[in-house]
């Protein structure tokens, strides 16, 4: 990237990139706005854990509601918009022709963001469903489904109209991310909100859904990006490429069974957590193959994009190992129902965030046809992201472990547990603040690039010449 900065236009910019500028910038921009907004709410929410009086008089922002709001904003606002931008751009590049049907993206993105805004207001006024990662009130879920489908249309067209018959591993992950989400999203909606299952079956559906959000949607987005960008940037082939297909199917096949690890000891059939523990082990095969395919990424001295991808991929692999280890009943006895699970979630979701950041640093200048205006802003964002991410995961993990040991000793009261975890939660809040600062830098940098570097006439879509053809 530093080499490329000497030219005016980044390397390898084609029509495929620049023609998709308007709708994809909408996705990238709204994703970053949600990321910053979600970060602010997450910061307040963490501070509430040790300052119960904070905003307690405001009915809209009780701890429980605020948690549901920031979770929804980050998952659907940030990962939804940002992930879709990456996936659509990848599919256009891999398909070899400019994105068609771009107006679907624009309309879809507007409604998607409207739905997330409505979700936040709905949860704040008491309409949360209380299912993790599916807190949106039922009346916005249909909007989300249809707007996601609209945004996905150009992706479908790029897939079906691809230049070459042969598909690349990045293709599979991108298409999986695009297609599986509407399926399991609509299934979960029906089984939880419209024709709810009875009793604790709802918990089984809810954990299945929440696991799918990661294993079938966000993880494939991240994998699609890394599998495309690494060979593209380094110019080297992927090692042991033939195995990639097994890695792909292992993730999808076993990943969606892993949700039951949150139900260990719960009022559900015991085979559900057992199955989840077994599948958590089996899914490590996917991570092993990903490591062997992409180990080139961990070579020192890459560009900023590669550094983001390397740290993101490293945490992705680490998160799988941690999830598997702490799915075992012996360790879950300590970490279940504690902040440790939030640390695990931050590690998994944070790894995807870092990979999307890496992809943004590569694709945004190509969409814009101009370079990032400031290298120091990129460095600042990188440092803040890495520092904040590591600190947040460690602090939440430590808080969770302390909390879990305390919970298992019946002599220790909740007030004592709270005083023991407080230090770590304060550290976690500071880490969240650092992350927020970094994300704010990225948002400002993006706006600077879009508003300052791209000529205004290029931001408004030019009417294409109407070709007079007989067809």
């Amino acid at each position: 990237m530093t080499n490329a900065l000497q030219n005016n236009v980044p390397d390898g910019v084609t029509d495929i990139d620049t023609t998709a500028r308007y709708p994809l910038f909408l996705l990238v921009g709204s994703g970053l706005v949600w990321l910053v907004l979600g970060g602010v709410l997450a910061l307040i929410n963490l501070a509430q854990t040790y300052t119960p009086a904070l905003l307690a008089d405001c009915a809209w922002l009780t701890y429980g509601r605020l948690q549901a709001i920031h979770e929804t904003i980050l998952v659907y606002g940030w990962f939804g918009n940002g992930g879709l931008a990456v996936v659509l751009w990848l599919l256009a590049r891999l398909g070899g022709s400019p994105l068609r049907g771009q107006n679907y993206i624009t309309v879809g993105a507007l409604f998607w963001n409207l739905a997330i805004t409505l979700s936040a207001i709905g949860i704040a006024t008491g309409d949360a469903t209380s299912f993790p990662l599916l807190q949106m009130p039922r009346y916005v879920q249909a909007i989300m489904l249809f707007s996601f489908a609209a945004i996905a249309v150009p992706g479908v067209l790029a897939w079906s109209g691809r230049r070459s018959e042969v598909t690349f591993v990045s293709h599979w992950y991108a298409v999986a991310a695009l297609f599986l989400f509407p399926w399991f999203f609509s299934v979960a909606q029906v089984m939880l909100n419209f024709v709810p299952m009875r009793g604790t079956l709802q918990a089984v559906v809810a954990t299945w859904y929440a696991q799918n959000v990661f294993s079938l949607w966000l993880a494939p987005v991240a994998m699609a990006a890394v599998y495309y960008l690494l060979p593209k940037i380094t110019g080297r082939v992927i090692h042991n490429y033939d195995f990639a297909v097994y890695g792909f199917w292992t993730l999808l096949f076993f990943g969606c069974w892993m949700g039951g690890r949150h139900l260990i000891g719960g009022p559900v059939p015991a085979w559900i957590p057992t199955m989840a523990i077994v599948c958590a082990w089996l899914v490590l095969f996917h991570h092993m193959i990903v490591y062997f395919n992409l180990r080139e990424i961990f070579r020192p001295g890459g560009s900023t994009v590669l550094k983001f991808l390397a740290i993101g991929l490293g945490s992705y692999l680490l998160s799988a190992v941690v999830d598997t280890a702490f799915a075992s009943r012996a360790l879950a006895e300590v970490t279940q129902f504690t902040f440790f699970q939030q640390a695990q979630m931050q590690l998994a979701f944070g790894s995807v965030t870092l990979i999307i950041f890496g992809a943004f640093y590569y694709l945004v200048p190509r969409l814009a046809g101009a370079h990032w205006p400031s290298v120091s802003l990129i460095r600042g964002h990188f440092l803040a992201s890495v520092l904040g991410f590591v600190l947040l995961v460690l602090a939440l993990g430590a808080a969770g472990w302390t909390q879990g040991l305390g919970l298992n000793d019946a002599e220790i009261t909740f007030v004592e547990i709270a005083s023991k975890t407080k230090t770590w939660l304060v550290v976690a809040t500071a880490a969240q603040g650092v992350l927020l600062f970094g994300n704010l830098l990225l948002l400002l940098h993006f706006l600077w690039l879009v508003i300052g570097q791209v000529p205004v006439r290029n931001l408004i879509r030019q009417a294409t010449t109407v070709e007079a053809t007989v067809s």
Partner: protein
Amino acid sequence: MKNGPTFFLGLFSVLAISWAGLILGTQAQLGDLRPLYDENEGRAFPLRSSGIAERGQLVYQDLGCVACHTQQVRRPDFGSDKDRGWGERQSVARDYVHQSRPQLGQMRIGPDLVNYGARAKASGMTEQVLLANLHNGWAGMPAYRFLFTQKKVLGETSPHALVGGAAPGYELVPTARARELVAYLLSLNQPYEFPEARPYAPAADEEKPAQ
């Protein structure tokens, strides 16, 4: 992978298999679970909760109480659930058959509440004290002041008004939602035994369940 249709069939079946296995499988196992009729008592357990408690569950759900409180007791040798007095036996699926949206929860910043009603009764906690706690906050739980209103005293005072906390001539009255929430909390109880979940002492048991 050159074959598009096969690829999509693969994607579809991956999801369908996990859905069928996990959700239909559980449905087949638990779908026809019924309350257990107890001949000695002449009633079926679990009991249905009262209307006010049902409404209270909606308040519990909409305030997001589930973010800090679980409603599931694990078996006595797993964690300290029993030692903390949260329940004599493990919660089982049958306990939740009447609940429209069980609030199992995934986080214990505060105590488990599945038997809260029984505990409150044993410790002599009354509705009024619980309302006062809800207003003031206690033991790390935030105060929920917005569930209360100050009313001008006109004639007789309200029987539910809290003592103190209001300007002279005014009284502090819990809203309907506060009283529903408290009724719900006091109704939380799993006192009955089921064949699949009896209280047991792990030390006395020869056969421990597999860890």
